[in-house]
């Protein structure tokens, strides 16, 4: 667990920082409330473990290592708001710490920009950081209780796999997100496809299979009685928030289910106003959910 006075370097990633910054707004408000300190750094793209790593593994390692050296210079751990950035930075850190040959190769590349990877810091997912704070402490801040809200938890793939490297949670039955959702009074539902991918990755190659996977995910959660999804990855968020119509067309259904980032659920529970969180920028409507819980 991080020391109380310690500060993280915040890694919001390209998607949250430059496309859906309202997620970052909720995360910062929740961190402030819970006393989690962060600071900025001129990080480049993590880079994307699905996209960029598929193009060239060595370039992916070198760019990931460069980001790590920026945090190493300040001797601070990184907290990631995104599954993809988290997996890249943690996996690059792991690979270079455990493979002397690969580390040498990458450091030879980094020499051209006068950097050296040392392997002296750690990378954390924000779910781990919140979970480390403790459910009891989180409960102390709850002003709006979400009792009765049935939540389909979706951790996404890169939060906890490959487990030998990530070491975040149980690889096929993650518990931390469920416990955090329960901390604000909501009820995580059991649904068969909880561990199913959102389908974003394959969508880079072809849309139809991506929408089919998403529809299977939605159907399973809705059948289990879920009112909303709670997610912890911006790629999953975008896939699920923006593609409900397409996924519906693919499977002859109409999907209309709110997608919330965990930090948005927490911020609302802690008494934040939906307008200050930029919830109007969600594509799938939150109106009836917000009205039901007394938000205007």
């Amino acid at each position, binding site marked *: 667990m991080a020391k109380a006075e310690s500060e993280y370097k915040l890694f919001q990633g*390209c*998607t949250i*920082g*430059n*496309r859906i*910054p*309202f997620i*970052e*707004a909720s995360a*910062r408000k929740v961190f402030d409330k819970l006393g989690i300190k962060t600071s*900025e*750094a*001129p*990080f*480049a*793209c993590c*880079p994307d*473990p699905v*996209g*960029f790593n*598929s*193009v*060239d*593994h060595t*370039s992916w390692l*070198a*760019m990931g290592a*460069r980001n790590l050296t920026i945090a190493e210079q300040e001797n601070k751990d990184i907290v990631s708001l995104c599954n993809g950035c988290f997996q890249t930075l943690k*996996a690059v850190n*792991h690979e270079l710490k*455990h*493979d002397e040959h690969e580390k040498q190769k990458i450091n030879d*590349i980094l020499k*051209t*920009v006068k950097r050296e990877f040392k392997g002296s810091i750690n990378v954390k997912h924000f779910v781990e950081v919140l979970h480390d704070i403790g459910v009891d402490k989180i409960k102390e801040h709850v002003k709006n209780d979400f009792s009765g809200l049935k939540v389909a938890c979706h951790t996404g*793939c*890169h939060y906890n*796999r*490959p487990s*030998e*490297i990530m070491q975040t949670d149980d*690889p*096929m039955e993650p518990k931390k997100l469920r416990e955090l959702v329960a901390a604000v009074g909501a009820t995580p539902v059991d649904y068969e496809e909880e*561990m*199913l*991918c959102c*389908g*974003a*990755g*394959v969508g*880079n*190659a*072809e849309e139809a*299979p*991506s929408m*089919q*996977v998403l529809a*299977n995910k939605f159907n399973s959660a809705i059948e289990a009685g879920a009112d909303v999804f709670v997610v912890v990855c911006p790629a999953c968020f975008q896939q699920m928030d923006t593609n409900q119509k397409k996924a519906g067309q693919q499977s002859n259904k109409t999907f209309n289910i709110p997608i919330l980032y965990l930090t948005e659920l927490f911020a609302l529970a802690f008494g934040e106003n939906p307008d*200050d969180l*930029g919830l109007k920028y969600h594509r799938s409507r939150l109106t009836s959910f917000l009205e039901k819980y007394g938000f205007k």
Partner: protein
Amino acid sequence: MVKVDYEFRKKIMDAHIIDTLKYCYQCNRCTDVCPIANIAPDRYDPRSLILNSFLGFKSTIFSNEDNFFIWGCTVCDTCDEVCPQKIELTEVFTVLKNMSIAEGKGPEYYTTQATAIYESGKAIPSQPAIERRREQLSLPQVEPPSVEEVQKILNQTKLNKIINK
């Protein structure tokens, strides 16, 4: 007759981060849990992809006209988790994808994204509209990365050649 490509086979065998025995006995657990094999079984099958990779049958893999045979993988890492032999399948598939890109056969998305990273340091470059939105939400500016450093690194790794920059 299928030819064994030994150089290709060595690349595949070297792909593991955590070194384990690389014996696949074709139990099919990877394909059982694969969300893509589940909905497109005729087009994507991790079990056969691993078989052909470990045997060094490069031409069998790359002569398939449908590149979904390689690119169907959604990188969910589920197969890695269930493999009884702890084969890091996703690492092997990354080698195949890198080779497919080098041959100019990858989906356009991938090189487009790599180009954005090469040119701006970010997969999604900063835009004025989003910067304004960040301001409205009382968020600090995203500190821009050094594009010069990024390009020096990516010229070293020869990514510039891969994406023709």
